[in-house]
């Protein structure tokens, strides 16, 4: 049972990441490969605030969102200059830069040693120390993110995003400043990813830079491509699949290190097969 709860929490974390990235890649058509950076920023914000300053977990989520939003604002400003595969490459670069800051700014992040002993959430004297209570928080967060994302994509703002994806020039002719829209959705997406990071940090109670590499961004991309671009339910489905699939390997009895590598092979092969045979993913409404 504990094991199932563990998987459910991981699922919630990745579903949030998937939804957040889908807003940028699926709905707006910007191939961003830097989501792990904002995931990491959220995780480190919570880790540092809880262990060094001792603020409340829920407050740290909000601060994480704000910090990720500020950083993503500047990254988005730069990325807005690019389109297509150059956008992908630029975002790639920011993931490497953020990772290298997490790894090398030892005074703040303790570098490769990571930050241990992150406390579990508590509010009004209620402790969410068991995994089951934590699952409730994780699922609630997923619910909130889902509702917000749903609201965004069904609003007029969301329709402009889709129009940008289909034909940016055309929507500019109608007088929309597409740069503002692209920047706004990028910042919103980063804020959502930061929530995942906060949850992750508090749940695992330990963070180190190796969780937030480019490979993690590739994994999040695999989640939304498998589930389907421009489909929020698809991202949830994709997260479910990709969190559960590697668990089968555990029952085959592979050693831990090999199992981790097998996961990467599976993600890699899934991406290739999807690109070859179903670039829309399972429930997708848009293909790259």
């Amino acid at each position, binding site marked *: 049972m504990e094991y199932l709860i563990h998987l459910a929490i991981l699922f919630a974390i990745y579903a949030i990441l998937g939804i957040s990235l889908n807003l940028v890649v699926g709905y707006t058509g910007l191939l961003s490969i830097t989501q792990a950076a904002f995931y990491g920023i959220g995780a480190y914000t919570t880790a540092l605030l809880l262990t060094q300053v001792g603020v409340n977990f829920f407050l740290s989520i909000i601060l994480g969102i704000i910090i990720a939003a500020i950083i993503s604002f500047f990254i988005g400003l730069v990325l807005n*200059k690019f389109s297509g595969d150059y956008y*992908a490459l*630029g975002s790639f670069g920011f993931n490497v830069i953020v990772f290298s*800051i997490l790894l*090398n700014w030892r005074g703040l992040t303790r570098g490769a040693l990571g930050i241990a002993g992150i406390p579990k959430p508590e509010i009004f004297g209620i402790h969410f120390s068991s995994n089951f209570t934590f699952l409730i928080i994780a699922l609630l967060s997923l619910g909130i993110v889902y509702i917000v994302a749903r609201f965004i994509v069904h609003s007029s703002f969301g329709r402009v995003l889709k129009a940008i994806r289909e034909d940016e020039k055309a929507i500019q002719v109608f007088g929309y400043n597409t740069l503002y829209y692209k920047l706004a959705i990028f910042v919103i997406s980063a804020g959502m990813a930061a929530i995942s990071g906060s949850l992750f940090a508090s749940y695992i109670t330990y963070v180190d830079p190796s969780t937030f590499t480019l490979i993690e961004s590739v994994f999040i991309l695999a989640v939304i491509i498998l589930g389907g671009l421009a489909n929020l339910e698809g991202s949830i489905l994709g997260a479910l699949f990709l969190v559960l699939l590697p668990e089968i390997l555990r029952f085959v009895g592979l050693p831990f290190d090999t199992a981790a590598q097998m996961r*990467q*092979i599976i993600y890699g092969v899934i*991406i290739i097969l999807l690109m070859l045979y179903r670039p829309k993913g399972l429930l997708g409404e848009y293909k790259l």
Partner: protein
Amino acid sequence: MFSQLILNSIIAGAIYTLVALGFNLIYGATKFFNLTHGVLAAVGGYSVFFFSKTLGWNIYFAVVLGIVFAGLIGYGLDKFVYLPLRRKKASNMILLVASLGAMTAIQAIIAILFTSQFRTLPLNTGTQRIYEIFGGVITETQLVILVVGIIIMATLALILKYSMFGKAIKAISDDEEVARIVGINTDKIIGYVFFIGSAIAGLAGILIGFDIGIQPTMGLGLLLKGVIASIIGGIGNVYGGVIGAFLLGFVENFGIWKISGEWKDAIAFVLLIIFLIFRPRGIMNKQ
């Protein structure tokens, strides 16, 4: 210190040149960012490790096999993944994402076969001769890297300029559709381009293995450097890639003059982003 920095920059530049040459060659012919390019360096390095250390074969023979093997993997990826995608008229982004998947998978396969540990390749390690130039130090291996880099560069330049094969590549770069109409077997030529580009990447991995050592994740860093060198030099332009590689080598090594060497990657990306903002077509490309 100063002359050592210059030497380090030149050696880094030579390695990045090898990666950028193959990357640019492939980009020129196919117009997509082939992200598996870096991991083929790891394939080359680990092949040599396998043939020479595990099987105990002659080291020079192992090097040749390693280069060919990296080339074959690149060729196979084109045949089974990129070529079918091109036939379906898939967008560049789909090809990019597919290559991202291939990169992730190959890197993990190497890690399973050889563990994630850092390995060294056998070639008079420890007993290497060291040369002193203007107060800077350069090892024998690094000298070999430099010489090989220059030879490959020159050979490739000659082939591209004077052979029929080179002209065919140029025609495909300009317009694949038209090249096909005038009777060039574009699929076959692009297959060869993948083989050659990947073999050069494998060679780069092998040389790095002799100089520093190999690790399954080495490819990603190399790929990024190769891509950055190509873009700042002028993407798809083979000579631009060389200039970009040396510029990157110098900026990186002088950038860490006063700060810790671990910031190299971040510095390289800052350079890329500066170029993307102010001169996205790179140094050599016109228009």
